[in-house]
């Protein structure tokens, strides 16, 4: 089985398409593109696709990932061309590469997510405040949770904040919590800029 890794950009109106809808969108694109995709066994066979960490609704991204498992070999270049022909504006394929089939999954390889937040008011004071505090308590399902340890880096210039947060199996910051951090300054837009 061949494993093809795709890195793509998501923007425009598509920022309003959630993770589950994106999965269906890719399945249909793979079918339209006639890729020799592998299917799961069983009564309701599904395409073998594996996605990176879900992008919160409303955010654009420069770095979304997905793996497509093919039954028959196809060149990365061919896959790129086939998909490009059938995708809609709002998705831009950045890289397509053939990767080692035994590689760890996208989500287990990723530890950190970087976001760029455009604020309405000057965010520098708020960014400083987050850096200097020891704990930021949020409530998840009626349980208190400290998200401060998940914030790895934060910096600002002008009305732009760049923030790096933990993004792995041990726990990630939610989109709504990220927005909550800059509630007072107002948020014009958020974009995921990197996953690593």
């Amino acid at each position, binding site marked *: 089985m061949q494993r093809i890794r795709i890195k793509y950009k998501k923007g425009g*109106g598509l920022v309003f398409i959630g993770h589950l*809808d994106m999965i269906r969108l890719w399945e*249909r694109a793979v*079918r*339209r593109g006639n890729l020799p995709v592998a299917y799961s066994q069983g009564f309701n066979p599904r*395409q073998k696709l594996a996605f990176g960490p879900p992008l919160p609704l*409303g955010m654009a991204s420069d770095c979304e990932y997905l793996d497509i498992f093919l039954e028959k070999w196809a060149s990365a270049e061919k896959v790129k061309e086939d998909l490009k022909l059938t995708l809609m504006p709002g998705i831009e394929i950045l890289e397509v590469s053939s990767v080692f089939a035994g590689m760890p999954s996208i989500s287990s390889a990723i530890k950190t997510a970087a976001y760029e937040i455009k604020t309405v008011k000057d965010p520098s004071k708020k960014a400083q405040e987050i850096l200097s505090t020891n704990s930021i308590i949020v409530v998840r399902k009626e349980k208190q949770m400290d998200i401060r340890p998940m914030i790895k880096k934060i910096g600002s210039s002008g009305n732009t904040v760049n923030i790096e947060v933990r993004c792995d199996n041990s726990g990630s910051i939610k989109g709504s919590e990220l927005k909550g951090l800059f509630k007072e300054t107002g948020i014009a837009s958020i974009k995921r800029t990197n996953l690593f």
Partner: protein
Amino acid sequence: MHKLILEKILPNVSKPARYIGNELNSVHKAPQDKVKVVLCYPDSYEIGMSNLGIAILYHLINKREDALCERVFSPWPDMEAAMKEHGVPLFSLESWKPIKGFDILGFSLQHELTYTNMLNILKLSDIPLKRKDRTGDHPLIIAGGACTNNPEPLLDYIDAFVIGDGEEIMQEIIDKYKSLDELAKIEGIYVPDHNKLSDVKRRIVKDIDTIDYPAKPIVPFIEIIHDRAAIEIMRGCPRRCGFCQAGTVNKPVRLVSPEKVISLAKETIKNTGFEEVSLVSLSSCDYPGIWEVANELGRALAPKRVSVSLPSMRPDSFKAEIAKELQNVRRSGITLAPEAGTQRLRDHIRKDLTEENILSSIKNAFASGANSVKLYFMIGLPTETEEDLAGIVDLSYRIIKEGKTSNPRAKITVNVSTFIPKKNTLFENEKMISLNEILKKQNFLKQNLRHKSIELRWHKAEMSVIEGLFSSIEAGKGLPLSRILLDAFESGCKFDNWTEHFDHLKWEAAIAAHKDKI
């Protein structure tokens, strides 16, 4: 307006993808020198986008060089509030342009409980609700669909009604939309004050095999109600059930050829990537050679893991032996509609099913591997007695007992709706039962139909009463329905076919206000 919608409105509403447009295969045309049409199904995006008629007309209009067609659906209440807050009028999905600027606004009216939403579309577009208050600067407001069989309640609001099939008529409307007198001359169009309803001849597309069906339908970003490729195979129904309007108005029965069905389905999958094809008609098993068509298609699409589904199937037509041979063909839920609980009443309403048919098909269905079957019954049918009502209970028990003999896990869902006399049917002059009678009968079923493998479901009685009021010739007699509709709308009624939005007290108040004046 684009920036405002993208940055201030959409981030703050539920399911923003309903409003963004730009789906795969949506059509975007420059407006210069074109007749601008916007089609509207006055309900949520998910319901409206599931309507095949809109998809066909969208394609046929956009094919013309001198016209363009866009779409709009009812904004959910949170979206409506956000739009009002920012002063944004209702806009089309394709160009995000105000509805008011189009030349023709065409409503698909399939259900009476979408009437208040229709008025709301006009209001949110800043278009006067009543036709007498509109000028040549406003779009021509037209309506088609099942509801235009009974246009009376809407006479004040709609400029022209399309009665019958829309494929050919829509082209003629685009050619002549500037003159109501010209429109009134088109076969199948009723223009209030310009021609007489009794003179209007229903428009029929004689050979539906010649229709240029869309092979590139829009692929929604979000899951809609019918989220699959829908291929029409037959229009009309050879059965003659006395209560059914779809069967009587869509005469004669017309077929799409098997060759066309198969090639269109393949082409549609190529252009959309849908995982399922549905062969659509009022009664699939009455299409000659349905199994051959479904089987051939199932085989052709199997490599792409696309399944074929057949809605409106009668279980008696689905034999276990055939089921084994069929590759990749599945029924989207097994349904059976006995409609009435006794043979006497089934005969009276001309429902062509005997108890023997029912039980043997149930046996088949469960034996061929099904775990659940949906049953449809009606209460309040003409001549119904207590015995008929008790018959629903008895028959349901016999069905579950029969089901359990072939599958111990067998379950049935019993859906009970209320009979509503519809115009152009055998029963158009019958009376609908009152709200109290509906509740009493529903209660009887709730009390008596209790079984751990039977789920009982019913239509909200108050909603059926309002639907009945606007459907039948009898029920509305003497009542100014158009004014009741306006009063209900102005007091805040909308999304009336959504149980959570339906406000019975407001409707009652609107009706009472006019009853008192008579």
